[in-house]
C-alpha cells in the first residue's frame, strides 16, 4: 500500500509473491494437518468429529493467512508453515490417523 506502484523493485515483488505462496499454500497445508488432528482429538463419533473439524477449518485458514501477511519476517512465516505442518502431521500419525486409509 505504502510504496508507489511504479517504484516497486523486482525484489519487493518477489517478496510479495513468496509471502502469497506461504500464506495460500503453506497456510492450506498447515490448516489441513490441523483439521486432521482436531478431528482425532474431538470427543465425538468419528464422522461427526470430521464434519465439525472440517467446518471449523476455514476459521483457522483465515487466521493463518492474516498472520502470514502480518508477520514481519518472511523466513519466519515459511518456517512456521513448514515446521507446523510437519509437527501436526506427526501428531496426527501418532494419534492413529491413516488406519482407515
Amino acid at each position: 500500500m505504502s510504496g508507489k506502484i511504479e517504484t516497486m523493485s523486482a525484489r519487493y515483488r518477489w517478496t510479495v509473491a513468496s509471502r502469497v505462496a506461504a500464506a495460500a499454500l503453506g497456510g492450506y497445508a498447515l490448516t489441513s494437518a490441523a483439521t486432521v488432528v482436531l478431528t482425532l482429538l474431538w470427543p465425538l463419533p468419528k464422522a461427526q468429529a470430521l464434519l465439525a473439524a472440517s467446518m471449523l477449518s476455514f476459521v483457522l485458514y483465515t487466521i493463518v493467512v492474516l498472520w502470514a501477511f502480518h508477520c514481519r519476517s518472511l523466513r519466519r512465516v515459511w518456517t512456521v508453515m513448514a515446521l507446523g505442518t510437519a509437527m501436526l502431521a506427526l501428531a496426527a500419525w501418532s494419534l492413529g490417523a491413516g488406519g482407515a486409509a
Partner: protein
Amino acid sequence: MKETLRQTAAWLHTWVGLVAGWLLFFVFVTGTAGYFEREITRWMQPERPLEIAPPAFEPAALATLAMNRLEQVAPVAASWSITLPHQDGSKRAWTDFSIRWEEMPQPGHSFGASTRERLDPATGAVLPPEAEPRETSGGFGLYRMHYQLHYLPYQWAIRIVGIATMLMLLAIVSGVITHKKIIRDFFTFRPGKGQRSWLDAHNAVSVMALPFFLMITYTGLVFFLFEYMPAGRDVLYGTGDANADVYYEELYGDHEHAAISRPAASIAPLITQAEKAWGKGNLAGIAVERHPGEPAEIVLSRVASGIEYYSPAQLHFNADTGARLPDEPREGGTALATAEVMYALHEGQFVNIGGRWLYFAAGLLGCGMIGTGLSLWASKRRRRHLSEGREADEHFGIRLVEILNVATIAGLPLAVAGFFWANRLLPVEMTDRAAWEFHCLFAVWLGTLFYALGRPLRQAWSELLWATSGAFALIPIVNALTTDRHLGVTIAHGDWALAGFDLTMLGLGAAFGLTARKVTTRLRPQTPPAEAAIPSPLPSTLKESRA
C-alpha cells in the same frame, strides 16, 4: 510489511478484494437472483398455468387413494411415500399430490429405482405429465451459475468459486480489522467528494449487511466442504467415492431397507394425531418403510419450515398395529445439525416472503459492496496517477481495472436483462433453446466489454447504465407483446409471483436509470482548475482515462 495489524489488514483487503472482485460480483448477482429462482422459472415458462390453490381436501381420504394406487403398482417395495398437497413454511408455491415408490435395490446397490406419479386429488387417477413448457434455463440456471459458473467443467468451476469465496472471507475479516471506528464510519457519509464518497458508500453498504456477508460466505464454503477441505476425510476414510459413501453412511445412518407392503394399520387415526401435534395443513407427507429386523413403520412428516427446513419433525408408528413408536434419534448429532442450519441460512428456503425480500436486498447490498470497492480501487489510483502529473503516460493496470469495472458492474446486469429478453424472443421450438439463452447472456456481456474498450470511460459508464435501465424497464412490455402472462392478467388474477417479476424489472429499470443519471452528471467534465485544492477525483480521473 513492517506495519500494524490494521495496516497489513488494509493491504490485504485491497488486493484480495481486487483479485476476487469481478468474479464475486458475478456470484452475488446470480446468487441474489437465485433467491427468487422459482418465481423466475415460472415467469420463464409462461405456458404453465397461473398459480391456484388446490380445492379443500381430506388428508386421510387422499392417503387412502394413494395407498390404493401404490398397492396396485408396487405391492412390494423398498419404500412408499405420499406427498399431500401443501405449501412449505415459505408459502411460495403449492406442492402437488403425488406418490413415489422405491423398488428393492439390485444386489450390490444401495438404492432401488424410484418412480413418481402425480394423482388427481378427486379420483386418485394418475395425471398425465404437465404440459411441456418452452425449453428454458430458468431461474435455476441463473442461480446455478453462482457456484458452477458456465462453460467450465463442474470440478474446476466450484474450485474457482471456492477460492474466490475464501478471498471474500479474508476481505471481510481484514476489512473489519481495518476499521478502528466501525460504528462511526458507518454513520459517515460525505457525498460529492469523489474518492471519499466511494469510501463512505463502501463502508456503509458493507457494514449494513455485514452479518449477512459473513454468513453467506462461510456457509458457501461449507456447501462444498470436502471439495475445499478434503484432508480430514482423505486421511481418515481414504479417497474415492466408495470411501466417501462409508463416511456418509456413518454420518446419516444406514439407508438399508427391508421390503414393505400395504400397512395393516388404519391411516386416519395417525393423521389425526399428527394434526393434533402440528395443526391442520401442516402434514406434508406419509412414508412407509422398514429397517431390517424391525417391524415396518409409517412415518408422518411435518411441512418443512423454519431453521429445521432440512430435517422437519416426524412421527413414527408401527405399520401393523398403529402404535406410536419413539422418535428416532437424530442422525449426525450436533455437527450435522450445525451443518444443516448453515445450509438453511445460506439458501433461505425457510423464510416467508418478507424474509425473502430481505435476503434479496442483502444480496443487492453485496453487489453494492463489491461494486463500490472496485470503483474505490480505481478512483484512488487514478487520482494518484494524475496528481503525479502523468496523464500522458497511461498506466496499464489502472486502465484494465477501469474497463473491467464498467463491463462488470454495468455490463453484467445488462447481460442478465438480455437473458430474459432471449427467453421471450428466441423461437419457442428452437433446438438447444436453454443453452442459447445462456449464449445470449454471455454474448451481451462480451459485447459490453468491447464497448467499454472502445468508448471513453465516462461515456461507457453512462451509456451502459442507460442501456441496462432501458433493457430492464422494457421487459414487461416485451412480455406483454409475446405472451398472455402480462401485468394486466397477472395482477387481475392476484398471481403475485408473476406480477412481482415484471414489477421488479420495472423497479430495476428505475434504479439503473437513477444511477445512470447520477453518474452522467457526476462524471461530466468540469471546467478546471478552480477547485484544484480539493480535486474532485472522478471527473478529472475519467476525463483523461482513454489512452
